[in-house]
Every structure is written in structure tokens, then in C-alpha cells.
């Protein structure tokens, strides 16, 4: 086989997977279906069987098989960063193991240990009032703290401490809390007085926080 003929056959093989770009002929049905199957496999985390794919694309399983054959060529090992895999129960897209080192570095990159405003407020309430329930945190903040609390739980900064008599989950600071703030014990939490807008107030902290929160929820005057 001459070099020219070889290149021509390569061109033919390539042409099947690159239809529609050059605009020389409309993409065939298999190519269009392959794109749909590709999109479905991309979205679905779990493997999809030919039956499911056929139902979603409203074609028969034979057509899906042809589309999958085309895709498995496009996703042949070593060609892309993603591979088409046939696993128990169907097909799925997964990353090429050769790229996994980089993926590990991506997921385990050192994250800056900062708190969002909502997280800082939620954590401060838990630290100073523990144990404290989620509804109480919401009442003090005037807005829900659900997603902030979830993140703090995941990061080990707060943990559950049983339930209140009304069934609400109680929180206290978690194992990572003292470590991250460089404290030896909770008694080393700074005295709130220096940030207190009304240090002369005699009422206890919890009472005052709840009162301020309820005033906010009522809606103070709009800022001019």
C-alpha cells in the first residue's frame, strides 16, 4: 500500500467521526444519534444500558449499538482524556487513568482556610452559645443558616450535640475548631466586650442576640 493510499484510508476512517464540521455532507443519522448518546452518558453518573439509551433517544437498540460503536472509536484508549467504558449493566464515560494524577492534585489542592460571612456568623453563634439549635441560629441571624451549618459540619468545625426537647438538632464546636483557631480551650475565646456595640447592656448574651435578631427580622428602617 502506498503512502498516499494509506493516508486516504485514514481520511475515510476519520471522516466518519468528523462529519458535520467540513459541511460537505449532512451528518448521518448514526452521527447525530452518537452525539445524543454521548450527551446522555456525560450527564448520567451511573452506567446506562442500551435499552435506557434507546428509550431516551426514541430509536431502537440496534441503532444505539451502532452509535455506541462509533463513540467507542472516537473514545478509543489513548485518544482522549475521557474513555467510553462498558461496565456491568451498561456504558459510562470515565477519565483516562493516565490523567488521574492531575485530577488528584486538582481535588486536593490546598484550600485557603477562610470562612464566608454566613459561616463566620454561624460559627460565632455556636462557639459562644453552645449548645445551640439550628432554629435559634436562624432566629439570631434573621436568615437561614442551613448551608453554612452543613459546610461547617463537613469541615469538622461544628458537630451535633443531641437534640433539643423540641427535636431540633443542637450544635457545639467540633474537633477541628480549637485547632484551626489556635486555642487551647473554649475559655480562650476572646471577650466579646471589645466588639459589643452596647457593652453597658446587662442582659445575657443569648437573650440580647435573640432580641437583636428578632428586631432585624421585623425589618428595621430601609437604609436611605
Amino acid at each position: 500500500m502506498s503512502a498516499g493510499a494509506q493516508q486516504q484510508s485514514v481520511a475515510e476512517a476519520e471522516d466518519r467521526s468528523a462529519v458535520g464540521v467540513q459541511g460537505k455532507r449532512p451528518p448521518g443519522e448514526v452521527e447525530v444519534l452518537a452525539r445524543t448518546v454521548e450527551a446522555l452518558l456525560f450527564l448520567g453518573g451511573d452506567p446506562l444500558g442500551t435499552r435506557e439509551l434507546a428509550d431516551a433517544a426514541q430509536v431502537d437498540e440496534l441503532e444505539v449499538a451502532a452509535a455506541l460503536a462509533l463513540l467507542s472509536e472516537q473514545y478509543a484508549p489513548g485518544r482522549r482524556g475521557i474513555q467510553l467504558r462498558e461496565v456491568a449493566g451498561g456504558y459510562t464515560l470515565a477519565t483516562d487513568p493516565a490523567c488521574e494524577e492531575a485530577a488528584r492534585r486538582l481535588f486536593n489542592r490546598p484550600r485557603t482556610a477562610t470562612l464566608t460571612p454566613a459561616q463566620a456568623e454561624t460559627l460565632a453563634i455556636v462557639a459562644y452559645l453552645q449548645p445551640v439549635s439550628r432554629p435559634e441560629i436562624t432566629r439570631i441571624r434573621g436568615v437561614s443558616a442551613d448551608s453554612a451549618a452543613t459546610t461547617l459540619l463537613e469541615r469538622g468545625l461544628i458537630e451535633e450535640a443531641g437534640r433539643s426537647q423540641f427535636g431540633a438538632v443542637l450544635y457545639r464546636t467540633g474537633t477541628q475548631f480549637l485547632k484551626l483557631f489556635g486555642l487551647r480551650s473554649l475559655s480562650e475565646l476572646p471577650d466579646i466586650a471589645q466588639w459589643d456595640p452596647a457593652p453597658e447592656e446587662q442582659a445575657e448574651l443569648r437573650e440580647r442576640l435573640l432580641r437583636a435578631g428578632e428586631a432585624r427580622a421585623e425589618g428595621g428602617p430601609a437604609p436611605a
Partner: protein
Amino acid sequence: MSTVAALDLDLDLFSGPFDLLLTLVLREEIDLLELQLAELVLAYLDHLEARGELDLETATEFIVLVAALLELKSRLMLAGEDEEQLLDIEPAEAAEELLARMLDARRYRSAAEHLRGLLQAQDGVRFRSAPAPPHLLRAAPVPADGKLDPAQLGTALGRLLVVAPAINLRHIAIPRVSLAERLSHLRALLRRGRFSFEEAVGDADRMTVAITVFALLELYKRGEAAWEQSECFGEIHIQALAPPAPAVVARGAGGA
């Protein structure tokens, strides 16, 4: 011409077209403090009823204008040193403010339409939401000790202790009592233990008594309090369904 401008009003204080009212208020020929905005809204609802259709554009404009009046009114009721200054707004100035308000509302309504268009254009674009395989998610590294500053917690709590300035209600004839105020009153009593309804209201006026009953129902609904009444018109005893969690006072230097 907008129908809001031509809306004919027959209020206690004023009869004539809405725009005239607006102007008279701006020119301080009608005291905003004496104008019942609720009456104004009811008149508008009657007007809509009579027309039998809702013109969204006009309705929005009406709402923006009434809200602006409401805010002007509440600013008049605000106590403070700048009260004089607020009352001194020139009619032309106030008209400019109302105009600015209407323009702002229009801008953001148009921007909202634009955003809806953008979202529409993205129709059919889906992102992958499958979690990454666990073997790639090695346990996240534990950040070094002392990375976060405890002062951050103090400032956060300090901000939460700020109480918004209260609105002075002395201009309003009817004494007002809010549900939230009654709720915190009852909660404070609950923390001390069992109490009677009589103790909770003292010799307050009927409005306060009614709102207190409402607050009590709310606490019952939330599972915070229960009550009992042994006979008709008898004493009502209220108690917490659970003792409130022990309070922790602010830690003083050296740890309290």
C-alpha cells in the same frame, strides 16, 4: 396616559385624581402623616375591580408610588436629629426622588427581562453533576493549626448584637403592638418558668391582649409552649414545653 394618574379617589382627606394627591403631598399641602395609605390602596383595588382587568404596567407603577409614599411617611415618623432636615424636602426635590424611584423600578424590570432572555438562550445546556470518583478524592488535607483568627468570631458576634434603630410611633394615634414584640415578651417569661396569662398582659389595652393571644398560639404551633385553662373564663397557665437551653454568658478575661 397612565390610568394611575387619572385614578379618581374619594378619601376622608381628599377627593380628586391620584396625581393631584401626589402633588399636594409633595407640596406639603396635605400632611402625609394624616393620609391613610391603606385607604388609598383599597381605592385602587376598587378601581381595578371596576375595570375588570389588571394592567401589569400600571399596577407596578402604582405599587412603586405607594411604596415611596409609605417610605416618606415612615421617614417622617423616624426620631432623630435629622428630622427637621427630612421635613424640609423641597417639593421639587421630592418629585425628583419619586421620579428616580419610578425610573429605577423600570430599569430593573427591563434588566430582569434581559436576564430571563439569557436564561432562555441557555435552554438545553446541562452540566454534569455526578460526583468525582471517591478514589480521586483523597481525604482533604487538614489545614495547619491556628490558621483562623478568633477575633473573626468576635466581630461576627458584635455585628449580630447591633439593634436597628427603632421607629418612633408617637405620631400614630392608635397604640401599636407587634407580634414579634409579644413573642419575645412571652419567651422571656417562659425562660423564668410557668406564668399566667394575667401576668403576661397586666393591665394592657385590648389590642395588646389580642396580639398576646395570637403570639401564644404561635408559640404553641412552634412547640415552644403549652397552656391549660381549668374552667371557662378561668386563669390560663402557660409553661415551656421544654426548659430553654442553659445560657452561656460572654466569657470575660480569664474565663468566667
